[in-house]
């Protein structure tokens, strides 16, 4: 199918700003779903609040546009009651790791079979350009006119430490890699995290003099490198891309199913 068959075309053109990377993530996600051959009725997308969260309105799957930071909590409920469905949870950096920080680490700890996508543009766009826990030190934001002093989370390390069993990173520049990583994340049995660096030309880019959308996206080519590449070896300051964690561990819904079976046996006995 064409990727346009997976969206609610009546809401297009979408409301994201010109050049917003979130549209590229939507684009790549639809390609991943198409290449996996998943049926629209078997997918549930839950989202929280923010520019990123608008994505659930655009995809023609089962969708829940929920509370700020709580997309993973809603997804957990859906997955536990209907484990046969594929759960995909796109979140912004603030939504996932500030407001929803606890839901994020506990979903990872449980290893519930959900794909979490962290659309990291390092800023709260919808509310006017406040800095987020992923902004990092030294950037300009509406709430940091003299630059930020807060260190940022490393999403990969946080997800790994919390127990996620698939952890990867890509950027909006690296569309083919993103599609491949999303396919692997969605196919993975367990909690999968894919961080995608994405440009916010309107707030982050303008404030931090990173240029127009095209310059911002091209920048990802120069500030990142593939895991295991010579470029990364020579310059460890580059942000690594690729798969960081891919391990097997008991999945939450399957473990819960065993509890149900055990409980029924005890009641019957």
């Amino acid at each position, binding site marked *: 199918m064409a990727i346009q068959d997976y969206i609610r075309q009546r809401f297009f*053109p979408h409301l994201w700003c*010109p050049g917003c990377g979130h*549209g*590229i993530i939507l684009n790549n996600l639809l390609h991943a779903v198409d290449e996996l051959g998943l049926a629209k009725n078997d997918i549930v997308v839950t989202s929280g609040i923010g520019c990123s969260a608008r994505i659930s309105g655009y995809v023609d799957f089962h969708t829940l546009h929920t509370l700020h930071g709580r997309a993973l909590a809603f997804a957990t409920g859906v997955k536990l009651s209907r484990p046969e469905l594929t759960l995909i949870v796109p979140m912004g950096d603030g939504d996932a790791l500030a407001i929803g920080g606890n839901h994020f680490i506990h979903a990872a700890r449980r290893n519930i079979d959900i794909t979490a996508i962290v659309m990291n543009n390092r800023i709260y766009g919808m509310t006017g350009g406040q800095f987020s826990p992923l902004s990092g030190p030294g950037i300009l934001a509406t709430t940091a006119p003299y630059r930020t002093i807060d260190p940022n989370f490393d999403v990969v390390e946080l997800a790994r430490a919390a127990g996620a069993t698939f952890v990867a990173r890509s950027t909006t520049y690296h569309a083919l890699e993103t599609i491949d990583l999303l396919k692997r994340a969605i196919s993975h049995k367990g909690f999968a995290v894919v961080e995608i660096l994405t440009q916010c030309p309107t707030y982050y880019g303008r404030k931090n003099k990173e240029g127009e959308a095209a310059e911002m996206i091209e920048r990802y080519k120069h500030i990142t490198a593939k895991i295991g590449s010579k470029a990364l070896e020579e310059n460890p300051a580059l942000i690594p891309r690729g798969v960081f964690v891919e391990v097997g561990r008991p999945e939450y819904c399957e473990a819960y199913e065993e509890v149900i079976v055990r409980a029924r046996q005890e009641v019957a006995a």
Partner: protein
Amino acid sequence: MAKRRLRELVIRREWCKGCGICVALCPKQVLELDGEDKSVPARPEDCICCRMCELRCPDLAITVLTDEEEGDGA
């Protein structure tokens, strides 16, 4: 693998917001922004069908339609 040849570069004008990502990142400078800041295929004959414009379009406005070319380019 059979070589792909461009059939048509379809751009939905009403969805394009003129961000210029496709224009700037096309390896063959096939695309341009017109007077209304909409992306148009100015040099489709140079297209190598890499589909990067389609995959990087934030507005889902671009589709690269291709034909499979026969082995000897017939």
